[in-house]
């Protein structure tokens, strides 16, 4: 019982939760505005992780700087995917519907291509590097520097995104596109611009998550898929396209996982996570934190 009340578990839950929230944020942005199910999302996390690894191994550039580089690289990839694939398709409403339905398969293809390109370029040998692994103890809570950094960056990016959506004019436009796509266009939102910047932003966030993950996990071309799954679970629990709710759901999942394991046993991890997922789908299919929208 002492363990349950200790700050140690809370720290672990927040580290996991913030990462889940961050990975899900990128996926949710892209789904919300473009209605694309990006199953290659986890592979962007992988690209972020490799960016951090190569930067520190080849040029001694620390991950804190790689955060920016990985974000830029993934944003560029987002731009390429949008300009090359989706811009024209999404412009026509009848075509856009078909793209939405087929996006899962399309991104599956992109996922396989990214994984295999990474395996060809870097080989599938696992990689790792050492960074900020000093343990800091505060109020009896032991925290490794890199996990603390991960918590800080993930939380900051999530809340930064929330504030941006709440207060910036572009954020309003973005939310308008998520809620009422056609109406947003009528009131003068530049749909093309919103979509382009959102896909860049969504991809960039995944790259940032990849850098954070790389500080503590082994890096391989195939490391991304579990993150895709977690991101989907989180945004479905929170409510598809509901950015704030998705972030909250990420933190909730971290808490449920960590405290659930502490109360039961690690063997129940999957049952806890997917139990919550299925439970939400049964009881509130629109997401726990989403108000039902009548259309």
């Amino acid at each position, binding site marked *: 019982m002492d*363990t349950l009340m*200790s700050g140690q*578990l809370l720290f672990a839950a927040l580290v996991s939760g913030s990462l889940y929230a961050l990975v899900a944020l990128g996926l949710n942005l892209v789904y919300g505005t473009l209605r694309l199910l990006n199953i290659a999302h986890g592979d962007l996390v992988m690209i972020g992780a490799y960016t951090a690894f190569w930067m520190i191994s080849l040029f001694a550039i620390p991950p804190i700087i790689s955060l920016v580089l990985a974000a830029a690289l993934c944003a560029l990839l987002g731009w390429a995917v949008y300009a090359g694939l989706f811009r024209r398709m999404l412009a026509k409403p009848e075509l856009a519907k078909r793209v939405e339905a087929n996006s899962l398969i399309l991104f599956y293809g992109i996922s396989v291509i990214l994984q295999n390109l990474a395996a060809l370029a870097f080989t599938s040998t*696992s990689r790792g590097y050492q960074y900020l*692994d000093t*343990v800091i103890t505060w109020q009896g809570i032991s925290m490794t520097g890199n996990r603390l950094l991960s918590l800080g960056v993930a939380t900051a990016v999530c809340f930064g995104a929330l504030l941006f959506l709440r207060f910036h004019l572009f954020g309003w436009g973005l939310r308008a596109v998520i809620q009422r796509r056609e109406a947003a266009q009528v009131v003068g939102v530049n749909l093309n611009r919103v979509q382009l910047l959102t896909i860049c932003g969504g991809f960039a966030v995944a790259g940032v998550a990849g850098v954070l993950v790389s500080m503590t*996990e082994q890096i391989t071309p195939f490391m991304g898929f579990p993150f895709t799954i977690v991101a989907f679970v989180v945004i479905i629990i929170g409510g598809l396209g509901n950015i704030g709710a998705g972030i909250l759901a990420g933190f909730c999942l971290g808490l449920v996982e960590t405290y659930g394991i502490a109360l039961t046993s690690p063997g129940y991890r999957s049952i806890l996570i997917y139990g919550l997922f299925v439970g939400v789908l049964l009881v509130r299919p629109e997401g726990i934190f989403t108000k039902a929208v009548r259309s």
Partner: protein
Amino acid sequence: MKGPTRLAIAALGAVMSLTIASSAVAQDPITIGYSIARTGIYAAAAPSQENPYKLWQKQVNAEGGLELPDGKRRPVEFVSYDDQSNPANTVRIYEKLITQDEVDLLAAPWGTPMHLALAPVLQRFKMPMVGNTAASVQLRNVAPGYIWFPTSAIPDSMGAELAKMMQAEGVETAALLANELPYSQEFRSFLVPALEEAGIQVIVDESYPPDIKDMTSMLVEVREAAPDAVVAMTYPSDAFLFAGQAKELGIEASFVMSLIGPTIDAYRKANGSAVNGVVSSAHWSPEAKEWPKGRKFFDAYVEEFGEEPDALDSALAYMSLEILQQAVAKAGLEPEALREQIASGTFDTINGEVRFDGVQNVVTPTGFVQIQDGKIELVWPESVKTADYAPKQGW
């Protein structure tokens, strides 16, 4: 078709067939077929096996090729396919290698399930293959014939040996954390009774799923129980997690084992001096003076790939080809003669002498290694150790 064109085509054809014929005489390589998991769930593990293959090929070809009983040498060429981490594909690929590609020799695929699926195929086609990266008690039940396993990291003998080692180091209490994947669970099932027999009390016994992302609650339990030993039956990805979080929580046990992972180069790069003192499963070390070939292999590997070979999989993969090479030098390429030679011969490898009885290597003892100053040292058993075991001093 006009005359000159026809003539030109005929001339081209003649030149081409001449080139093919002459290259066949000059080259005439020995083909070795294998499949490997280049994609799918085992893909991250496969380079530790395929890299030694490539290194061996390069070395053999630099010497003029693979030596045959008549003293002649022929270059080695690999024919390989991706089995996508699926044993059913492995079976199909080896059937194709034998019947359609008509390769001269076979090298092993990655992993226990692939090896087990392959044994009956080899039997059916009567093609010998020296295995490598497979380890399970199930291997002991494979009918002897056309497959052999050089490994000594088989869970039943590992359980018994680890209990002996822990007893020798004065361990009285132990915490067991086991991944739910088969190899870890198999090892656990042999370790628990062996510990009991050795009088070592198990005070924490937890299993965890392979996709675990946080071990805090489990390790807090271990920290509170304060055992003398922590045996984490890890696979590579959770080995990273275990090391990072055991350090974060300040696990103080003097005997710490992590089953699979610590012998991978990236593990030591990611964890640095924190993992000095961690014990792991392997029966080879480049530090062994009695195995001079081992150091040469290690140096060549580091030069070729810019990282250290995995003391378990890479060593086994290289050994399997050394055995094949020495058997071919004596028996040639004829499958029956080769089978007879592998089954009855004694081989000099980077891991010392190897000899088979049935499917198993009966010379190499089951061993354990320890990371000491970033190096992989064999610390158990006494007969082959390269350094004394040293209790872990913090993280």
